[in-house]
């Protein structure tokens, strides 16, 4: 119980309070020096957190292959890609050799293409779902049209006013709405952070 819950919650509280006070500590003070050193240590711990995520991915896919899962060919592809890239990257270096080749001709094109699929789905969704069913949705659509036309050369060729109205919408009306959302989210984030530090929220520990 002590190792499972009490110690982690105590550490969370101490580190949280330390971070809050350290944030405002003047430069050159002992608290500030410890704060900056601790931040450097956390960078190293964060690296292992990234490696944990990658390790878990490899573990899950390896288990799928060993258990003869129907997708085992794809899992083998994933493992092969990961191990070859990591292997050559660690041994030869990232910005040269095989790893650089994989980055330029496999990873980058795949990532760009994956995200470019969204363009098709956005167009399809716009056709199927964007209906002016109410006054509010009509306002949304008209705003979308003006902003879309204001941000491309053809819009300003049709009427130069699209660019200035679009700019005004983004910098005034949109800005007001975004600010309200940001303020709400910020207050919520602060409350959530305080709940974590005070031990009210313990989901980050992963359950009993």
């Amino acid at each position: 119980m002590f190792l499972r819950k009490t110690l982690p919650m105590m550490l969370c509280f101490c580190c949280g309070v330390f971070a809050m006070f350290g944030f405002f500590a003047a430069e050159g003070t002992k608290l500030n020096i410890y704060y900056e050193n601790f931040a450097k240590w956390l960078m190293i711990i964060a690296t292992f957190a990234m490696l944990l995520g990658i390790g878990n991915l490899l573990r899950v896919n390896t288990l799928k292959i060993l258990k003869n899962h129907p997708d085992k060919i794809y899992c083998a592809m994933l493992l092969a890609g990961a191990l070859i890239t990591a292997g050559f990257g660690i041994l030869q270096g990232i910005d040269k050799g095989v790893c650089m080749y994989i980055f330029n001709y496999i990873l980058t094109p795949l990532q760009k293409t994956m995200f470019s699929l969204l363009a098709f789905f956005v167009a399809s969704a716009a056709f199927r779902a964007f209906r002016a069913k109410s006054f509010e949705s009509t306002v949304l659509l008209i705003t979308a049209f003006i902003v879309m036309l204001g941000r491309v050369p053809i819009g300003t060729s049709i009427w130069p006013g699209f660019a200035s109205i679009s700019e005004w919408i983004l910098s005034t009306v949109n800005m007001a709405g975004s600010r309200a959302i940001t303020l709400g989210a910020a207050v919520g984030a602060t409350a959530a952070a305080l709940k974590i530090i005070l031990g009210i929220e313990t989901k980050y520990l992963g359950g009993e």
Partner: protein
Amino acid sequence: MEIIFKFLKNIDRRIIFLIIAIAVIVTLKAPMYLPLSVSKNANGFLGLLDAVQEGDPVIVSFDYAASGEPELKPMAQAILYRLFERKARVFMMAFWDQGPGLADNTLNGKGQDEGIIKKFERNNPGRKLEYGKDYINLGYKVGASNVIIAMNKSVMDIFSKDNTGKPIEEFPIMKGVEKLKDFKRVFALTGGNNGLLDIWLPFARQQYQVPVCGGCTSVSAPQFYQYMQSKQLDGLLDGFKTAAELLKAIEYTDPATGKKGDLLSKDIHRIADVQSVVHIIIIIFILIANATYFYEKKYGRANNQ
């Protein structure tokens, strides 16, 4: 009429995909090169670049992955070119693991792209950019805000080696640069979370008062306007449109012919045209869909009665 609207209502989405693909391909092959004007935002950002003095150490942060490259690489090209013209000391770094590789691609080019260094040296025959003196690639660090805090203690402590693995204290560019506050400005190019909004603004700008300006993708642009209005961000390149405008605003004189030109390449201009066509097509799709909806609402109800 009813048959047409019924067909449009039940249209296979693959036809929509095909129309979009055809529009992109046709416009890429037959661009119109519509006129592009330079906006106030782009001019404002150029003003910030021109305020950088000779020898000023500045950070250019490549906080994006390959998915953000089409929009952010033109920004990076414009920013780096102008900073090299201003003879600033450029420190490149990244909080995303693909950042250093993409920074190298921007500098040195890949495939048909010649890279910004070659372009700059061709337009400025008297100047040769030197790694470690004019620019340096510090590489990638994980830990975001922790890195910024630790950088304010000692940059060399965090970035003990550059992206190629050499100790950074050997490079002359590091002279006079010990902590984060020694940098005159940060140009942060961000592809999403973990960049301008979450790291540079709260820590570099708010906590350590280092001026920050940045570039973002069109997707996240609307949320940055509030930081511009509150003057937390000095300047913003909000997507491909402003990037193209900034490239157009940066002019040079060709040393061989004496002709004036700008950084806006035909490729970028072509892409702006394709954007125009696809936007018009999507607007037409939405209008057709709404016409179908209103037709069905009006005549569908009458038929049911």
